[in-house]
């Protein structure tokens, strides 16, 4: 049975630590992002559990790994991040506010007819590489981008964030065969392994374990990390490519609803619509 929160130590010989200031910045950004998500949950509701589980991952990737900045969002030399689990988009938009890609007032337009902030990403929002919502789409698309970078001899990274429940979709496994065949070591697949799909634990429906062995068998170099440990992430993502010629997969063990104790690892913390009072109260209860 899947056990969230288990840490697999990585590169023990060269284990790096983050400086206190670096760690502080990551924690503050993640905290602020979760507050933005609660705001959106108060403006008509959103997928809070799935968004909270990948806040730390997204915060780390945009802050320390991806070569992308607010003035160069369309730079052909940038790194790409594709959020395939599109319903986690509040995490992306909350973080985009913190990164200055969009203004904070933009989130007040959540679900309003005068803007495009809705339950799945829209490509007109600065920072969104491609729309998603239908599961199993963005890994093949990320592979197309990674393949073009390879054809051109360019060194961009392509990160694709997938939910674990999303791995039910067959298109992902077609895509894995292609990634291996074309030796896409510039592709980094990140699995937000929060252990849940819409209604159930993944292992109660279509068991995914042993997941790392599945990816290994598909020719990926696999690393399992604690998806809420910035130090774990630093140690993992700085050693990409894990193995030249092999696509990378990071299984990030996360907790659905991470950051708000009453939401954590609950099957019903999926879509949440909150009152103004709840937004206020839960924001106070957020883990710092």
């Amino acid at each position: 049975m899947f056990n969230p929160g288990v840490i697999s130590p990585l590169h023990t010989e060269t284990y790096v630590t983050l400086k206190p200031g670096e760690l502080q910045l990551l924690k503050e950004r993640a905290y602020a992002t979760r507050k933005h998500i609660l705001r959106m949950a108060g403006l008509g509701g959103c997928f809070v559990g799935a968004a909270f589980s990948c806040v730390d991952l997204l915060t780390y990737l945009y802050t320390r790994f991806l070569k992308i900045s607010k003035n160069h969002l369309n730079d052909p030399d940038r790194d790409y991040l594709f959020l395939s689990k599109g319903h986690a988009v509040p995490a992306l938009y909350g973080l985009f506010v913190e990164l200055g890609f969009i203004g904070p007032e933009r989130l007040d337009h959540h679900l309003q007819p005068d803007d495009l902030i809705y339950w799945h990403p829209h490509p007109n929002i600065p920072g969104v590489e491609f729309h998603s919502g239908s599961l199993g789409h963005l890994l093949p698309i990320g592979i197309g981008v990674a393949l073009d970078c390879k054809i051109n001899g360019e060194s961009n990274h392509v990160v694709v964030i997938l939910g674990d429940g999303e791995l039910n979709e067959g298109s992902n496994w077609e895509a894995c065969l292609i990634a291996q065949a074309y030796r896409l070591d510039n592709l980094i697949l990140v699995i937000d392994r929060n252990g849940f799909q819409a209604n159930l634990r993944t292992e109660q429906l279509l068991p995914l374990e042993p997941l790392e062995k599945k990816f290994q068998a598909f020719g990926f170099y696999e690393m399992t990390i604690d998806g809420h440990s910035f130090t774990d992430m630093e140690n993992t993502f700085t050693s990409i490519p894990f193995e030249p010629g092999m696509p990378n997969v990071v299984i990030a063990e996360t907790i659905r609803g991470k950051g708000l104790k009453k939401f954590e690892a609950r099957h019903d913390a999926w879509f949440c619509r909150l009152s103004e009072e709840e937004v206020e109260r839960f924001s106070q209860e957020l883990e710092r």
Partner: protein
Amino acid sequence: MNYEERLITLTLSDDRFLILTAENRAAIRNCPALFKDRFIDTGITEQALIGVATGLALRGRIPIVHALAAFLTMRAYEFIRSDIGFANLPVKLVGGVPGFLSEGNGPTHQALEDIAMMRMIPNMTVFSPADEEDMVLGLQDILRHPSPSYIRHNPLPPEIGHCPFQWGQAEIFSEGRDVTLIVHGTLFGQSLMVKEHLEKKGISVGLINLRMLKPIDEATLLRTGRESTLLVTIEDHFITGGLFSIVAELLIKHHQSCKVLPLALEERWFHPCRMKDLLFHEKRTGEQMARVIIDKMEES
């Protein structure tokens, strides 16, 4: 010049073009050796193939994607609609052995709804050439147009020469007061024979090779509807959503009324066999179709 020769010339002329396939190499045998990393075979993975093409297009490429029409349009439909269609990316879809061209493969391989499905997608354009020469004539404009496109691949040898291709315009072979045959794709050759048979009976026959089904040549169709006593739509496609539907929608939209005889597959698949037997069995030889049309004219 055949399809592959034209494709090679065009691909060599523009670095943006990449040739992709889901292991359907029949029409592009010489491309792998010639184009090396600009030729991408994803294996039998139509859904992921469309995703990969989408990613390549995001990087400024124009992927020319080859797969069997039935699997390309149906297996990968949601990817075409939601990724290529919504993003309006210049991905060029080439559907192999559509309609009657699947011959003996059986219903799994019969793409008889491809036109309906593709034309329904916003931004998508649809080209259904009458034969290989017609396909070669239109290829450059279709590949270079900024929209996503569906090409109903048709390698049948030409029965007649064609005029130069013009975007969104039908090719008018003749105008007729009594009957106008409106046709696209595979059944064009037989339609020429229909025309001959009818003319022998002293009937004035128009013949239109539509070429593009989206955008459709509205002006030509509406004029024909006014000037001809009977329109006959000829297609190797289900009756729903294809050429007959296009003509019917257009006439209604413009409050125009006229008599239309649809020759299409109604609520059934066709019997799998070789083309010659298939045409006869399905009553789609020129002579058989001419007889159906004469019967219809005599009815009224």
